[in-house]
């Protein structure tokens, strides 16, 4: 069974090679590595030129004509990938060698899965484990009425679903049915969360892999470090309001 790793990237010349290598070194060999370059202006091109000359036919590469945002790239990647299973991988993260195998096994019992992850710093030193837990679907779908209080109490994390996006895997048809939202949702980096909320609303079956299947890089330029938390909460509140109405 073919597993597609979809890697959108923008100006991550320093990290992308780590991500690609982690896919190439999967214990499961029937994979494809779909790289969507969102018009990078750093030295990503030079790396890609080299990579394409290495003769690994599992590499699929597309470059946008202009910067389109990460949701566009993820949707494009999901669309052009051909594997029955799609694994999400951000270009600054690294997949564990048995990620494809574990995801394949898990998806015989569910439609979407996620797993534990290891946080690492910019140069790959471990910062500890982020353990995957069962989803609390009702809580996730409860509208946020008092987000300003939540923010003050520092419980923003409760609204994160606890899923490290770079650990997610789904059956291809699910990926196509739930495209990531573009625009503001994408720019604030809650496109993944938004997608999960819609899946939960529709009763898509989630399950998790207890093992660490991805190393997640925390560095100063990640969107989660730079975005405005108030804007994020406002947007999340309005999304959940919408979900409630449609239920």
């Amino acid at each position, binding site marked *: 069974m073919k597993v597609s790793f979809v890697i959108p990237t923008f100006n991550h*010349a*320093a990290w992308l*090679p780590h991500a690609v290598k982690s896919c190439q070194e999967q214990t499961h060999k029937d994979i494809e590595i779909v790289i969507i370059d969102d018009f990078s202006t750093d*030295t990503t091109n030079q790396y890609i030129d080299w990579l394409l000359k290495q003769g690994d036919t599992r590499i699929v590469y597309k470059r946008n004509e202009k910067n389109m945002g990460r949701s566009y790239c993820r949707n494009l990647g999901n669309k052009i990938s051909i594997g029955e299973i799609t694994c999400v991988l951000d270009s600054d993260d690294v997949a564990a060698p048995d990620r494809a195998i574990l995801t394949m096994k898990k998806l015989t019992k569910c439609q979407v899965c996620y797993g534990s992850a290891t946080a690492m710093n910019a140069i*790959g030193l471990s910062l500890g484990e982020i353990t995957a837990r069962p989803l609390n679907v009702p809580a996730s779908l409860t509208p946020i009425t008092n987000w300003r209080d939540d923010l003050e109490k520092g419980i923003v994390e409760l609204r994160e679903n606890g899923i490290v996006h770079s650990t997610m895997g789904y059956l291809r048809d699910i990926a196509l049915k739930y495209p990531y939202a573009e625009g503001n949702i994408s720019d604030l980096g809650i496109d993944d969360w938004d997608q999960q909320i819609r899946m939960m609303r529709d009763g898509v079956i989630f399950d998790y892999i207890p093992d660490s299947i991805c190393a997640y890089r925390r560095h*100063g*330029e990640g969107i989660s470090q730079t975005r405005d938390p108030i804007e994020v909460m406002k947007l999340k509140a309005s999304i959940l309001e919408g979900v409630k109405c449609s239920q």
Partner: protein
Amino acid sequence: MVSLIIPVYRPDYEVFKKCLKSLITQSFKEWEAVIALDGPDNAARIIVDGFTDKRLKVVEKAQGGAPAARNEGFKHATGEIVWFWDCDCVIEPDTCMTLVKEFDNKDVAFVYSGYKFLGENGGIPAEPFDPWTLKCGNYISTCFPMRKEAFPGFDESLKAFQDWDLWLTIVERGGKGLFVPGYAFSTKVPDAQSISGRNFQKDTWLDRVAAVKNKHNLPDRKVCVSSQDHKAEGIRLAKLIDADYKDVPNYKPNDYDTIIQVGFSLHPGRIRTFSGIFNQALKKKIIFWTRENIQEIQNTISHKALTSYTSALNHSVVQFVEDLYAKEIMESAGFKVAILPMPLENTGDIAPLPATPKILVDITDDYRQLVACLCHSLPEIQFEHMDENKPINDYNAILSLNTERTMSFNVKRMLLCGKNVISNIQSPFCGYVDVNSEIGKYMSELVDATRKRVNKDTSAAVAYYKNQLSPNKLQEILK
């Protein structure tokens, strides 16, 4: 067969006994000893006879000094290796075995090591064989083996330094020496009256040095470069500006008028070995502060010590550092310094950069993890750790990250050879990347900088550094 030739003149008989005993108990057995009595000496004969060892032969001549006695002894030597020995030297049990084995190499005319003093710790280390440094001063004791056919005879007309003269003559005739690290033997601490002793008159000493220099047409240089921690760089600099090189310039009498010290430690336990710089008789004194010195000043030298040295050094010594960052640190510690990169010879030909990019890595420990990550970020580039023996032309660039952020010899050498530099050094063409920014940002910048620089044209950099690193500026200062 090895022939040991031992001149004997008024020996300390107890030590003489030990000397012979140490020979007889050597692990190496194929030797003879020619004991050359420099004037009659019955007590010595009795000691030799006492050993009843047929390998010990005694010859006697009228008293006429050690060189003559050695030449006389040589006439009786039958071995293909001759080894001039002293009656107050005690050899280590395996020395013969270790040194004689080296003559299997046909290129070798003589073999040497360092030696110790009886009853004292440590000793006089020798140094790797280099005909150029041998011309600046002797570092090889008489008591080492050579091929019989290489031996030119001791010059009996010289009043001193026959050992230096001996090795110079052998080397001038094309003989090569081989240095074996370690200590070969122990000798009695020299008497105060002897040439090796401490009370020797400066003028007499200089006359006798001059005699050897004249005989061998050695230049009488007035400038001496010296270094404790950067010997190779010191020698390189000395050759470049045609100066002498000595590890410690004021250890023996000399008539230099200028000292250039490469590296200068203010550490209380070490400052004495550098104190030659304070000699009032010197016309000019120059210090090149190295990155290690600067770090030492920042981290380990007390404020009080600094204050006493800054005034002394600022008053009489011209002090240089290699770049702006080093200058700022030294100035904040109170030193009056100017920027002058230590000159470097221009190695000439510049080869084109290799098509498959390869980078030499020269980093301090704190960057190890970062560079390990960097190697994975740049899979199209090969990284290899710095090693002096690797041919520079195999590489496109050097990655130099060091805590002191200062220009190193390796970086200069690469620049002159037309290689690219990626570093945290704030000098022109050094591919500076700001080490103080957030690590993720720094990492990204480093990856991009490395990719962009690895195959860059370097002709402008070469032209700039040929000028910067030429010895002209230093020679101007020396005038």
